């Protein structure tokens, strides 16, 4: 599979502190790649390096199969992006900002401006100065600008920040459509893991500047097994009873009060009856599911 973005040992330090540490990133052509990590993990810095806004200390970057360097900027014609916050020329209208974008990108289809304004639901306020836009509206305009020149690759740094739930859903559908209809590769970072989970084909988990894992969302779902979680005052006895009486083998003692049983063929009712009969104090019992969030936290904790 052809990689549209690939990095090799990408490293960057600021004032002696390593913020990106030997990152080997691989984004395949035509996929939606979710880039997740806590604040300060290095996501934005990597995205800036991909756009040639920040120079790496060491390592290599390949975009569209070509090695990137300082003098190479033609590849940027094929990329749409949102970096950090949505920045605009505030005194200009939304329409003027998009016209300017077309001029700088060398993109001549002006009808497309109205189309993208409609796509992001800003069709009635094109003539309003951007300084009068709300943060959510600016975010929509930034998305409009990013997709305006029909880029092959979208690099989106927290694009759904400041959007309301309806806006988030609209943008999720829009990204899905761009991906399906035009085969656009989308490299998207977000701290809203449930959103990434809904649109991404693969995710990369980064923490402390290190890329901890690249994994397909199908593989993540394999981790999303159901389990029964028991809160009890005697984990040792409870675990012993469950093993001996119910022949349960996948028992995970999480801490002094919590036990998790994976792949259990018994009901919660049966388990509570067993524990109460043997005098084990039961605080709570219920079925739960591992989410991307759990997976993410487990990875980042291991990473630390």
């Amino acid at each position, binding site marked *: 599979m052809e990689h549209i973005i690939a990095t090799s040992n990408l490293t960057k330090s600021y004032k002696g502190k390593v913020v990106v540490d030997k990152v080997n990133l691989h984004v395949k052509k035509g996929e939606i790649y979710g880039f997740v990590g806590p604040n300060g993990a290095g996501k934005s810095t990597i995205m*800036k390096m991909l*756009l*040639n*806004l*920040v*120079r790496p200390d060491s390592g290599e970057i390949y975009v569209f199969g070509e090695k990137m360097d*300082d003098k190479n*900027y*033609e*590849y*940027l*014609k094929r*990329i749409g*992006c949102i*970096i*950090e*916050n949505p*920045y*605009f*020329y*505030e005194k*200009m209208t939304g329409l003027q900002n998009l016209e*300017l*974008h077309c*001029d*700088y*990108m*060398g993109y001549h289809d002006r009808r497309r401006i109205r189309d993208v304004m409609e796509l992001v639901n800003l069709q009635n306020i094109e003539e309003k100065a951007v300084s009068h836009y709300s943060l959510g509206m600016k975010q929509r305009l930034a998305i409009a*600008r990013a997709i305006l020149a029909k880029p092959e690759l979208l690099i989106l740094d927290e694009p759904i920040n400041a959007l309301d739930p309806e806006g988030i859903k609209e943008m999720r559908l829009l990204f899905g459509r761009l991906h399906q209809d035009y085969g656009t590769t989308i490299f998207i970072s977000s701290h809203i893991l449930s959103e990434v989970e809904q649109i991404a084909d693969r995710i990369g988990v980064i923490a402390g500047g290190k890329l901890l894992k690249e994994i397909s969302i199908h593989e993540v779902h394999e981790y999303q097994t159901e389990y029964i979680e028991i809160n009890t005052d005697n984990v040792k006895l409870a675990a012993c009873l469950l093993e001996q009486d119910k022949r349960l083998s996948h028992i995970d003692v999480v801490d002094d009060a919590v036990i998790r049983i994976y792949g259990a063929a018994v009901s919660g009712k049966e388990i509570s009856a067993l524990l109460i009969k043997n005098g084990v104090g039961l605080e709570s019992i219920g079925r739960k599911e591992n989410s991307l969030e759990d997976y993410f936290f487990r990875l980042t904790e291991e990473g630390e």
Partner: protein
Amino acid sequence: MAHLLKLEIRKFRLPRKMITTFLAVAFCMLFITVSLIDSMADPEQTKDTFESTFLVIGLLVSLVFLIYSSILTSTLVINEYSQRTITILFSYPLNKRLLIAIKMMLIMAFTAISILFGYVCCCGYIIGMDYAFDMLEGSFQTAYLSQWVAMAVTSAIVCGILSWWPFVIGMIRKSVPATIVTSLIVLFARQLIITKTPANQENLFQVVFTLMVTLAAVTIVFREKVTKID
């Protein structure tokens, strides 16, 4: 390059900024008028000569337009960094250094042309006023013109070169106040230097020296600061 130049002119509505140039020239004329009327009204004061009035015009015009050029530098360059629109600009398929150089060349040309325009308007004004109201000592002679043109062109070139200094300091701090304050310091320093020369004007050595030092500082800033985004 011409395309980028056009874009910058359109983006910052530079044609509209010509209005400010006209207002600035009008301010210089008003200042000169007040000064001339004052010397005419007071019988104890001697009338100004063409030479001294020309020096005042040179001082005023370079003061006004060097400050104005620092405001343009802030608007066209420094604000792009401080308001972070530079991240968008630098994500376009353009040579980053060329982009900033074009902005600065635009400012330098604008400053030099405005200064020449200011000289032409103000000198024409005092010649006209003297012809109508005999406001100056002696009468205007065409021989003045060759001297004035040379001095005005030198002044426009020097101020065009000096207009890079607010950019240099402004880029180090990425700060609008630093940019504007630098223009005042540059003006003050220039004034200190030229008042010590007989013609109140830079000589060739000073012009070349200023150009070399400015070029060195600009080269360092272009190498170290222009493409760096915090």
